[in-house]
């Protein structure tokens, strides 16, 4: 990887980091377990690799933004996640912030 590519990759990851959290929170307005959440996000055009998404869910839960429960589905125990009430509030504010940034960038580019 060249220096320019490496720099681009670092900046891209930095740019994506916050967006991934927002996307995961948005998708978890409905209950999901790790794999179906990943699939749902991918179907909407946001590919996230396992090593990023699954630990992210744990962190968001530890921060009180998600709640989780173990439940059996299709003869397999799975951990289902959903947005908590605190998470809903924070998600709403983050969404406003993201939309404001998005609108600003759009204005700057015009």
């Amino acid at each position, binding site marked *: 990887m060249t220096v320019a590519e490496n720099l681009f990759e670092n900046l891209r990851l930095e740019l994506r980091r916050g967006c991934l959290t927002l996307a995961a929170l948005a998708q978890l307005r409905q209950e999901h*377990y790790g794999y179906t959440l990943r699939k749902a996000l991918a179907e909407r055009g946001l590919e996230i690799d*396992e090593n990023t998404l699954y630990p992210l869910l744990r962190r968001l839960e530890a921060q009180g933004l998600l709640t989780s429960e173990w439940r059996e589905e299709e003869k397999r*125990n799975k951990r289902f996640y959903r947005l908590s009430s605190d998470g809903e509030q924070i998600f709403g504010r983050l969404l406003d912030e993201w939309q404001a940034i998005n609108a600003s960038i759009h204005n700057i580019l015009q």
Partner: protein
Amino acid sequence: MELLDRYLQAVKKHLPWKRQDDIIAELRANFEAQLEDKETGLGRPLTTGEAEDWLKQIGPPRQVAARYQPQQYLIGPALFPSYLFVLRTVCFWTMIAYTIGSVALLATGTVSGSRVLEAVLRAPGFLLTVAGWVTLGFAAIEFAATRRPEKFPTLSGSFSNWTPSTLPPLEKDAVHGKKPRSLASAVAEVVFGFLFLVWLLLIPQHPYLLMGPGSLYLPYSPFQFAPVWVPVFWWVVAVNVVQVVWRCVDLIRGAWRQPRRAELIVISAIGLVPLGMLLAVPDHAYFTLKNVADQARYGAALDSINLSIKWSVLVICAIVVLELVWALARMSLEAYRRRAASMQ
């Protein structure tokens, strides 16, 4: 699938032990669902090669487990600026104390090359030890602050007391558009100042450092140094110690970019003392004959040498006095301008 079991077992070994069973159960459910999807798509079980490719794509077990570890710092970003400041301060003060201590020890005993070399070689180890203790101390504070944040509320808000009025005044060099002295050159001045001091201290025992091959001639020379050179030598050492210490203090205070008028005045003033001692020598006898009986043979040469030294000392003295007067005049002028500006 045995390969997946082996993979998860390897991941588990690197997970935080309190949560490892829970994380592995979740990972297993996710991976098995993913595997099931893949096999449904293919209409057959994965071959060993395909399973290996899939797990390879997920990543090495250690890397997968690392994502579940809390982010750990030896010294975190909130504490790091303070750590760097303290480390720099402590290291420089240690260096000053070490230099003064070493010079004092060398001055009280016999100055030999091996003793000076020993003192110089001991310095990096000494500095590293001090830096290690400072780092350990801050790592302990970080450790405690991470686990008991309520006990260290000031760490996160340590910069909240900052106000713009506490900023240092605009530097003169920056005002006149001149490039200020860089940190690298300020550090180099301290390092070379220290090395010069070492070199100076070695001269009495190793005159070849000053005179080169000419020092071999010294024992056979009919001339000898007059006693005045001993206090003159120690004054020169003192002047250099003051200069090195001054520059170290400037570095610690972060004042290396500021003009060095005060330093120049003090050093020039102290530097006049040994020059005055030399000028005060009766009959300017800087060198004398080892054997008075040689007066007829070497007397004229001795007078010529002493006269040359006298004129050299006079010229150096004149330069130092001019420098001193110039620095004092500029300082007075700047003070007058500042006063005039404040009255407007």
